[in-house]
């Protein structure tokens, strides 16, 4: 069995701590800006927080679990595929919903929101598939 067949190249388990630390710092950063402890433009805060939160979710999704075997690998791949399909579906369907409800194709949802929702969908899928394995 070669490396590609064997497993995905996942990050070591302790990267989970790094991901949660980044997430915590993001929440702290948002809180500081909400309570005006630091004076930064809201759009910039949104952009920075979106990127760091996305980074933490990415690290979490590519970090290996305590036990990784072929079934967990299969579940991961299925969850990635499902979240990709979800992302494409949302991209197609949301403008149509906007058109019906607001009369415009324009949406305020950006790339960050879409990717974060895809990651959340991915984690939900992983959770459900692991529960039902």
């Amino acid at each position, binding site marked *: 069995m070669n490396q590609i067949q064997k497993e995905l190249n996942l990050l070591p388990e302790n990267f989970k701590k790094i991901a949660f630390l980044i997430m915590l710092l993001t929440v702290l950063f948002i809180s500081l800006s909400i309570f005006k402890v630091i004076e930064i433009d809201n759009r910039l805060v949104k952009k920075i927080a979106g990127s760091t939160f996305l980074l933490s979710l990415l690290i979490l999704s590519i970090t290996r679990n305590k*036990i990784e*075997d072929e*079934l967990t690998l299969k579940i991961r791949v299925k969850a990635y595929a499902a979240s990709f399909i979800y992302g494409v579906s949302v991209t197609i369907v949301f403008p149509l919903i906007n058109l019906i409800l607001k009369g415009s194709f324009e949406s305020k949802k950006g790339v960050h929101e879409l990717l974060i929702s895809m990651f959340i969908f991915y984690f939900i899928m992983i959770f459900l598939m692991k529960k039902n*394995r």
Partner: protein
Amino acid sequence: MVKNTIKVERAIKNLTQEELAKLISVSRQTINSIEKNRYIPSTILALKLSKVFGKNVNEIFELESDD
């Protein structure tokens, strides 16, 4: 579908799911899924199981009649 006799073989060898899982480096849940026919293992895993039980793969795994 593929049916298997892992539960029987495990009982003969007096192994728990956890012990068998450790022997072939997978999770206990994976053994459980294989036993309940919810997951068909790869050839490598099937060979590892056959080595543990000292039997041929086709003695442990068998195609059901409709396949």
